């Protein structure tokens, strides 16, 4: 058996479509995860004891169970509680609530790293809580939360592959179909690895670039 690139060449349109699906699923779920994770962190901080403990349980469950199990439960268990979604929306929602749990932990640690005195100084000059979050907390912790956020984004890239198990037509799904059709698993898997590695590499570089940009603000007391 030889390494047959023509199979890839013939199926390039399908592969690129799958790659595109992976890209946008990942981008949207990362953005959604950051926004939802931020809201969860804010709610845990300011929302009172009950909300904090409910959200604490959510985070613990999301982090304590495999994404594969979560996505199966959402897809196959959803209809039992009246949620019937097609594959792609299920995958997207699953990724967002999974990612949000991790992002919220990053934001929570970020909030805690800002010295209380900086927040009290804001309170003393009359900033509201929301103004303090926006003008003081977020920028002060930006550099701190950036590297772990990039890590989570990278993990989410690879978790998109799990969506092939519920037949979302993303890269892993498309290439494994091609691989079994032509009995060309090595070609398909190599290509797959290259695509994911490319995305991870781009993300890592973007993260380091942003870090360098931000670190000119790093004038810790």
């Amino acid at each position: 058996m030889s390494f047959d690139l023509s199979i890839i060449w013939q199926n390039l349109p399908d592969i690129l479509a799958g790659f595109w699906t992976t890209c946008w699923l990942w981008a949207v779920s990362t953005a959604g995860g950051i926004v939802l994770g931020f809201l969860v962190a804010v709610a845990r901080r300011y929302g009172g004891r009950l909300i904090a403990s409910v959200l604490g349980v959510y985070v613990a469950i999301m982090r304590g169970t495999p994404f594969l199990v979560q996505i199966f439960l959402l897809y196959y268990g959803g209809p039992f509680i009246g949620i019937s979604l097609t594959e792609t929306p299920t995958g997207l929602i699953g990724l967002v609530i999974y990612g949000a749990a991790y992002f919220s932990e990053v934001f929570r640690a970020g909030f805690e790293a800002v010295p209380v005195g900086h927040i009290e100084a804001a309170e003393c000059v009359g900033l509201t809580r929301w103004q303090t979050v926006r003008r003081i907390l977020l920028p002060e912790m930006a550099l701190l939360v950036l590297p772990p956020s990039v890590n989570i984004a990278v993990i989410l890239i690879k978790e998109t592959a799990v969506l092939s198990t519920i037949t979302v037509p993303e890269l892993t799904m498309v290439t494994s179909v091609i691989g079994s059709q032509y009995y060309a698993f090595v070609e398909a898997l190599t290509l797959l690895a290259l695509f994911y590695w490319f995305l991870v590499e781009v993300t890592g570089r973007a993260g380091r670039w942003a870090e360098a940009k931000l670190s000119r603000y790093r004038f810790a007391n």
Partner: protein
Amino acid sequence: MNSTVPAIRISGLTKSYGETEVLHGIDLEFASGEVTCLIGPSGSGKSTLLRCIAFLEEATNGLISIEGEALGFAMGPGGNRIRLPQAEVRAVRSRIGMVFQQFNLWPHMTALGNVAEALVTVRGMSRSDAEARATRELERVGLGHRAGHYPAQLSGGQQQRVAIARALALDPRIMLFDEPTSSLDPELTGEVLNVMRQLADDGMTMLVVSHEIGFAASVGSKIVFLDQGKVLLEGSPTEVFGKPRHPRIDQFLDTYLDRGAATLI
């Protein structure tokens, strides 16, 4: 403004953390334009008292009024304390400026940014008006030439002067200082004390927690000695530091001060 209304009136103030009461019924009045120095051993409750006046802590009992207006709580008809609405709290609080031992400048903003921030976000001034005003405040504390520096690029004394400018930019009627020079190297305390002295000369009502007895004795019109959560003594510097001294004052001077400062009195 009725000059008989005190700048700050504190009555029956207690503060507990959990089961532990740390302030046991404080009654104090500070006149407008007066500089009061609050002294006392470590742990006697000076910071707690100042933080209650800044409304960073809520008093467990008792009332505080600022220029005659209730801060945070008012006396209800039945003699019970009622909490005032947030808008009223903010309005009364805006008359107070606070300076911390640790400066607490925001590290991601320049000196100018720190001073201009609340003018834009709270007062709704345009960025350029706010920066013009902030520049004047920085010049007032002698730091016009450091406007573009970040806190980490400034010495401790300069940072504290920026913090003072940040508070002054909001036109407070009263300034609170919690050990403003305690985290500074000795050679940097002078520049901060000079700014404070200037502010006192300009007629600002000031409440200063400080172990700088020389400053307290020369600038303070009044000294309050706090001991174990109670006001032990209050009076003019000569009354408090002059002889014969209260034995606790003697002990305090011995324990907390170098003899050099004590002989200034």
